[in-house]
Every structure is written in structure tokens, then in C-alpha cells.
């Protein structure tokens, strides 16, 4: 009986598949005139939609869709555990072939592992705009919109070192293990360290981009290096965690902290003097520009290789005004 049941299920599946296959091919023969006047379907695939950064990116992307006339859908992985977002992104990318998207904006969790599916998109003639985190193979995308995380790390680190008086000991607090953004920012920071001979990196640990973990890690590190002068964090969340750790140790003010992203909480901390510097990645503009580039691509307009969204170092001086510079 079980066998018959299993057979029935398989048959249903096969029959529906065949029916659907023939169904979808007939769809293609639809009115070409209709296709031309239809709005372009742009699918934006982000790393998640739980971080404030990416929520801004999504807002920017959708706004661009409304203003410039395209149908923008934002998709993100459901699993937020480290490493699993990649498999889901692959599935989301494959779905764009199913849903016949016109263009895909991709911000990959894993710059290497996403390449095969990008190849599939290429074969399906769906152009790709790479957003925020570079895909490791630049033949897989038409243009890159974003900032160089390397530069972001470099600029912020420099600002931090200047604030420290060009000398002292620092911690480097990394982001999630394997995250491309973290790897690049740290590279940038280390490059800056090369230029300042009196700056010494005494510890480098990961806090997984988490405020809570950073607080624990920095508290622990302060035990070994109580005389540290600066903490370079790969994002604002960890910087805020470091702030709490430094506060708890009673060292507020004697340790300069830097972050990345310039989210609201970090700006508040800058105003209070608890964080020294962060950098604004302009997520809204990143999202906006990426959709704009996608639309230009589809409209056969001239498209640059690299749309660099300017990063802005944010400190006490410009914390209230930096957002006006769109």
C-alpha cells in the first residue's frame, strides 16, 4: 500500500511538472509589445533585513523603484545563523530565474560561494548589479555599487589614530568569522597601522558583529591590556558593546573607540563623547544607486564599472550634519 501511495505522489509530481513545463513555454510566446511597456522587475537580494544598515538599503532601493519606475522586490535569507544565509541566497537567486526577473541586485553573504549561481544568472541573461560586498569574480556582474570596505576601514582607522595622538595600543575587534566586509575593513585598518609606527595592535578578536559579544570580549581583553588606548571595531554594534565594557571598567574617555555604519545609536554615543569616530556607509544611497544602475543597465544606458558611494568619516564635528550630504 505504501508503495502505491509513493507511486501516486511521484506521478502527481511528474504530471504537474510536465504540465507546468509546457505551460511556461507557452507563456514565453506572449505579446512582445506587452513586455516592452511592462515595468522592469528588479530583485534585490540582501544579506538580511534585521540589521538597521540593510533596512536602510532596502528603503533606498524601494524608493528608487518608485521614483524611477521599476518594480523592486527585496529578498533576504530567513536563517540568520552564520553561514547559512549563503545557501538561501543561492536559492533566492535561482528563484529570480524562475520568476523571470529583468535584473538582480546582489549583496552576497559569501563572495566566493555565490559565484556558481551568478554564472547561472549570466547564462539566463539576467544582468547583475553587485552591491556593497564584492563578488570575487568580476566577470559575474556588470557594475559594482558600494564603497570599498577596505577604504572605510582605512579612513576610520586613520581618524582614530589621529585622535589618539598617533601613538598607543589598540584592539581590533573583527566581525563575523568569514564575513567579507570584516576581512576588508580589518585589512584597511592594518594598512593604516603600517603608516603609524607608534601604533601597536595588541589584540585581535572576533565579536561576530554583536553588541553583547563585543562587551564580553572587550571586558576580557581589558584584563590583559588595561592600558589600551584605542579600540577599532568593524561595526557600530560592536563599538557600542565596547563602550559599555569601557564604562564598566571606569575607563570612559581614556580609550577611543571607532565603529562603522553611523547608525542612530552610535551617533548618540558620539554626541555623548563615548564613541570617537565612525563612518557613514550611506546605506540608503547604496540601495538607491544600485537600483538606479540596474534601471540604466536595462535601458541600455552607459553604466560605470564602479559607483563609489562616498564614505564619510563621522565624528563629533559633523555628527549632526553628515546626513544632509546625500
Amino acid at each position, binding site marked *: 500500500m505504501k508503495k502505491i501511495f509513493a507511486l501516486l505522489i511521484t506521478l502527481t509530481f511528474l504530471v504537474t511538472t510536465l504540465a507546468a513545463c509546457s505551460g511556461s513555454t507557452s507563456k514565453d510566446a506572449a505579446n512582445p509589445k506587452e513586455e516592452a511597456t511592462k515595468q522592469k522587475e528588479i530583485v534585490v537580494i540582501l544579506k538580511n533585513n534585521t540589521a538597521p544598515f540593510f533596512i536602510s538599503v532596502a528603503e533606498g532601493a524601494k524608493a528608487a523603484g518608485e521614483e524611477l519606475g521599476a518594480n523592486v522586490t527585496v529578498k533576504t535569507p530567513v536563517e540568520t545563523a552564520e553561514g547559512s544565509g549563503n545557501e538561501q541566497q543561492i536559492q533566492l537567486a535561482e528563484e529570480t530565474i*524562475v520568476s523571470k526577473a529583468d535584473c538582480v541586485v546582489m549583496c552576497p553573504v559569501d*563572495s566566493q560561494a555565490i559565484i*556558481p549561481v551568478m554564472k547561472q544568472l549570466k547564462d539566463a541573461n539576467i544582468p547583475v548589479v553587485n552591491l556593497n560586498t564584492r563578488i570575487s569574480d568580476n566577470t559575474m556582474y556588470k557594475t559594482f555599487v558600494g564603497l570599498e570596505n577596505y577604504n572605510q576601514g582605512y579612513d576610520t582607522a586613520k581618524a582614530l589614530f589621529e585622535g589618539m595622538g598617533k601613538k598607543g595600543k589598540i584592539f581590533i575587534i573583527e566581525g563575523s568569522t568569514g564575513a567579507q566586509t570584516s576581512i576588508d575593513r580589518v585589512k584597511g585598518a592594518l594598512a593604516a597601522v603600517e603608516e603609524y609606527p607608534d601604533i601597536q595592535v595588541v589584540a585581535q578578536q572576533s565579536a561576530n558583529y554583536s553588541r553583547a559579544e563585543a562587551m564580553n570580549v572587550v571586558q576580557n581583553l581589558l584584563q590583559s591590556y588595561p592600558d589600551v588606548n584605542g579600540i577599532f571595531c568593524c561595526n557600530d554594534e560592536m563599538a557600542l558593546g565596547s563602550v559599555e565594557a569601557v564604562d564598566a571598567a571606569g575607563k570612559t574617555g581614556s580609550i577611543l573607540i571607532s565603529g562603522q555604519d553611523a547608525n542612530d545609536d552610535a551617533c548618540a554615543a558620539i554626541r555623548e563623547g563615548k564613541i570617537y569616530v565612525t563612518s557613514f556607509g550611506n546605506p540608503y544611497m547604496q540601495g538607491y544607486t544600485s537600483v538606479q544602475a540596474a534601471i540604466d543597465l536595462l535601458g541600455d544606458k552607459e553604466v560605470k564599472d564602479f559607483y563609489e558611494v562616498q564614505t564619510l568619516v563621522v565624528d563629533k564635528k559633523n555628527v549632526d550634519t553628515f546626513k544632509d550630504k546625500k
Partner: protein
Amino acid sequence: MLKRIKKLDVSGVAVGDIVLFLFFCVAAENFLNGYNFILILRNSCTLLVASIGMTLAILVSQIDLSVGSVVSMSAVMVAILNNAGCPLILTILATLAMGALVGLINGILISKFKLDFWVVTFSTMSIMAGLALVIADGATVSTQNEVLDFIGNGKILGVYTVIWITALVCAIMILVLKKTKFGYNVYSIGGSATVAGVSGVKVVKNRTMVYVLSGIFSAISGIMIAGMTNSGSPTVGNEYTFSAMAAVVIGGTSFDGGKGGIVGTICGTLLLKILASGLSLMGIPSTWQKATIGIVILVLIITDVVSEKRKNIKGLRRVYQDVD
């Protein structure tokens, strides 16, 4: 006819599969699409193969938490060995051997030394996950190999290679569980290890074999992932352990052991993937997707369990069941 359907172990989740499937055909644009079905099948492959090992472990009333970590480790191993110039066939064999070795260690510690299986597999899970990170130096290792890429992304006779591999593994294991002595032993150990032992089943050997197989299947899954992504990510298997457990349990294999099977796991895995695809194509934001998936699983399990309660078989079995 209905009564006979109800007797099937997998009826609940299979019905759920069909119901959801039909629902999404109507509710989600582009779901009813040949290419999409193939995608769902293809995307189920890696989880399914890893879940087969988990199914075996749960059938003998134990568990293998190290599944996810062996998957990660395998993917990394394939990438690194390939980059080091090792011929692919050797790479694959070495990776399978690694999986088998981890399984062997699990099996021996658990069955021979009688250590708690949660503790042993939890520790092998942690160790393998950590080693994968260390060997890969915290980042995804990219790798290029035509044959590997063919395994992951190629097609044989129009069907994806991974689907062939998965179908083959499933078919073999279903037959093994049904027709071989080993399969019979697995079910009897799951029913009651003491009774099985008394009636001549070599409990230690069989349970160890289960873990070795689980390790091998996890390794196969990792190899497939390495092929599909042309890289080895040390964190790729992080969710696999828990998802595999869910797929197996949803599929009707109970933690008590001795009940359920691979067909159920196939249905369970398909359920998770159909859900994911359907919700995504419906355009539901991912924040709502997570909660929805939880609710659907819950509803399915509740209906399944409630209809189970009407069967008296479970009550009778418990009287003879052992506390292992």
C-alpha cells in the same frame, strides 16, 4: 482505503506536502513552474543526504549532533585538498574517510564505552566545527575543478547530478532498511535495545555502523555543497544539524526509535524546502517567513500527533519499551 492510508507512517507529512504544494501553486506566482520544482528538488538534496544519517541515528533511539559540522568540514576539506593539487578521486575518498572516521569515533565512544550520545556527538560537533574554521582560516576557500563543478552543477540526461546522487543514496538506504539484516537490526534496536540484544542482535556493532554511515552521508553532503558553490565554507553546515533533526521528526521518525524511515525524511525535507520556496515566491518578507515556518511545522506535527493518538499501537508498545 482511508484506514489503510492512516496506517502509513508518513501519511501525515506527505499529505501536508501535497496540501502546501497545491496551496503555493495557487497562491504564489511562478511557483507552478517546472523549473521551480526542479529547483526545490535540487535544493533539498544536500539537506536530505545529511538527514539520512540523522534518520538512522534517531531510528536506533540515539542522535548525531555532529552532522552539520562534518558537512562543513567536508566542504572545506574538498576545497583545500583540491587547491593543494590532490586528484579529485583521492580528495573525495579522503573526505568520505574523514566522515567515516568521525562516525567511528562517535560510535565507539557511545556504544562501546557507553557514553551519553548527546555529549559525545555534541563534542565531536564542536570540535569539527572549530577545526573547519581553523583549517579554512575563518574564510570561505574557493576552489576550481571541472569534475567537482559537474558534480555540483552539471546534469546527466537532463537531470542534475546532485539529484541523481541523492536519489541513488535514498534508494539504496530504503532498500537496506527494508531488505537487509542491518535494516532489521536498526529497527529492532530502536524498538528496544535490550530486547534486541537478548535476541542476538549485535547492538554495539550495529549502532557504531549507524554513526559511521551518518558520518559518510554528511561527508557526501559536504562534497555536493563544495561542488555546487565551487568553494568550501567552514560555516555552511551550521544550521544543518537542527534542520536535519526537524526534517526527520517532521517526517514521522520519532525520537523513541524504531519507527519511521527514509521516506518520511524525504517528505520532511521536501516540506521545509517547499515552504521556503513558496513563501519566498509569495513575496512574504523574510521576517514573517520565519514565524510562518514555525507555525506550519507546528500545525503539521499537531495534526500528525493527534491522529496518532487514536492508534492504540503506541500504548501497547510502551509497555514493552525499555528505558535506554
